[in-house]
């Protein structure tokens, strides 16, 4: 019946009306989806951020009874946190750890991707084995690391056998080695991440510019430097940024192997936050500290998002013409 009524209306008006109902339907759809999401965010993140702010300004530890009776402390807690040298050192340590492991993952992952992105015999087998570490639960990697790395353990034995000398690296008990040990485990764990992104990036590069350069007699090295590398820039930036952010948040391996020790050699930001809140039970200090860390991380993430967007826009422009062809 509705269609009969609609058919009686002259064409133009009908089209206009349909567009209007369509727009209204889209709006209704949009808000019914978004309201669920917004409700969840307000219901979970809202109180959490409020509590965090509350504890940052009220002196509270679990020994002090109810949290709503905590005493107002003004900026004291923040002052304590900002002047805490341990936090400063933890931040530096985290950045070093994240930078080192990101670099390691990227160099190895990109290298392997370069060797493997063209079809060759055994490609599928190598690919499957190489992604396995990424599929292993990080906590399993931590305990595997411990089984391998104790001083009179299999890794030192294998290294001795390969080098022909007595290798005796103190992987776990030496304060100067510990952070490097975590870093090596992190690299082992996440090389596959850089590897799969880079190999997908390499495989998706347009062939024409490379073929053209080849015909013009360019060497492989120059094709790589002047054609492949610039085209890969967005993917490279993506692989580095994501890995860096995840490494800044690394917790399971550092925690289950070292709990911040020996001394405080592996005390990165997440570890120090965890120790403050769940071992010293200094809830207020932990809250103020996580506020500081959160602001730093948000700044880093915003910068990261800015770079990702810039690269994505450049890519969209490059592929825009092709997409428009497809869209007709």
């Amino acid at each position: 019946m509705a269609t009969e009524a609609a058919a009686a209306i002259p064409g133009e008006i009908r089209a206009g009306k349909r567009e209007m109902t369509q727009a209204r339907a889209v709006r209704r759809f949009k808000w019914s989806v978004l309201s669920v999401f917004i409700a969840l965010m307000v219901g979970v993140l809202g109180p959490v951020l409020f509590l965090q702010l509350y504890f940052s300004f009220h002196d509270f530890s679990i020994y002090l009874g109810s949290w709503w009776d905590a005493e107002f402390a003004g900026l004291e807690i923040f002052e304590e946190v900002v002047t805490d040298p341990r936090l400063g050192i933890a931040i530096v340590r985290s950045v070093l750890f994240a930078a080192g492991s990101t670099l390691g993952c990227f160099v190895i992952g990109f290298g392997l991707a370069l060797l493997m992105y063209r079809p060759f015999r055994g490609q599928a087998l190598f690919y499957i084995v190489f992604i396995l570490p990424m599929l292993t639960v990080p906590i399993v990697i931590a305990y595997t690391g411990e089984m391998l790395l104790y001083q009179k353990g299999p890794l030192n034995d294998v290294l001795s056998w390969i080098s022909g000398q007595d290798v005796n690296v103190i992987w776990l008990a030496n304060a100067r080695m510990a952070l490097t040990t975590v870093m090596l485990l992190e690299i082992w764990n996440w090389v596959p991440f850089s590897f799969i992104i880079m190999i997908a990036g390499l495989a998706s590069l347009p062939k024409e510019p490379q073929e053209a350069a080849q015909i013009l007699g360019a060497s492989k090295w120059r094709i790589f430097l002047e054609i492949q590398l610039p085209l890969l820039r967005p993917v490279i930036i993506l692989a580095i940024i994501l890995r860096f952010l995840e490494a800044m948040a690394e917790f399971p391996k550092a925690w289950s192997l070292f709990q911040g020790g020996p001394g405080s050699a592996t005390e990165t930001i997440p570890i120090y936050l965890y120790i403050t809140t769940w071992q010293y039970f200094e809830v207020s200090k932990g809250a103020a500290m996580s506020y500081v860390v959160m602001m730093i991380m948000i700044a880093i993430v915003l910068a990261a998002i800015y770079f990702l967007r810039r690269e994505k826009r450049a890519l969209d422009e490059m592929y825009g013409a092709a997409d428009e062809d497809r869209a007709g």
Partner: protein
Amino acid sequence: MAMSRARKKTVFEVGRYTILVIWLLIVAFPMFWVISTSFKPDHEWFAWPPVYWSQEPTLNNYLNVWTDYSEYEDTQYIKSLQKPWIALRNSLIISLTSTFLAVGFGAILAYGVSRYRILSETRMFQLLMLRMVPPIVVVAPLSLYYSTLGLLDTVIGLVIVYFLTTLPYAVWMTKSFIDEVPREVEQAAMILGASRWRTIWEVVLPLVRSGLVATFLFILILTWSEYLLALILSKTEVVTLPVELSKYEGSTEGRVYGRQAALAVGVTIPLVIIGVFIRKHLARGFSFGMVRR
């Protein structure tokens, strides 16, 4: 002396396989060690020189972890453990539920973004902050908030946080699959008289089904292996497998490597199967539409 083309190629091939095999060994050795340890009796766990192939392989570790059988029934660490089956059940319930919700809701959102731009690109990138800002910075007040609500140590509590932290990946990944379905297909179905919901249900959904499965499995990997949130937000009732695994340390008997290894193998195998199954889609999960085909 200039090398001939063929000679050069051979040198390259040899070099390539050498490097790849070296990395293969580096990847495989720790895995070999866990598997091998899981079959060792306890005197071989710390032996020097290290035991690579067990002289007396045994299934005791597996039996001990996964069944009621226990040769150390009276020792402290066995008593302090939950049986892993409970942890396995918790892990399954929590990760399947949160992943299902995240992918379902993410796909609806992604459809809206792909077809009607209900979120601008700026908002889509802002969504990523949910994932990129490490959860440790809010988890302390979150645990207090949860304990006020009675959500601490419950399945629902963990499902909510996993849902929120994996939603960005779910939206971005499903969107990349939905973007690939040409609008013309939908338009054609609607011109033929299908309603909007029927179009989505019978035309779009079958076309993105494999993509949704890939997204589901990808996010399942993330929630299955999550440790920090599970450690803090669950204490005794809803312990998940990664947290259960970490309980095998620090008892008076020292580490129990064999049992830890047996449990680790069990925890990891599902992920390896899933990951190998969706290996072609893994890159897409992380690439936010930046790797084109």
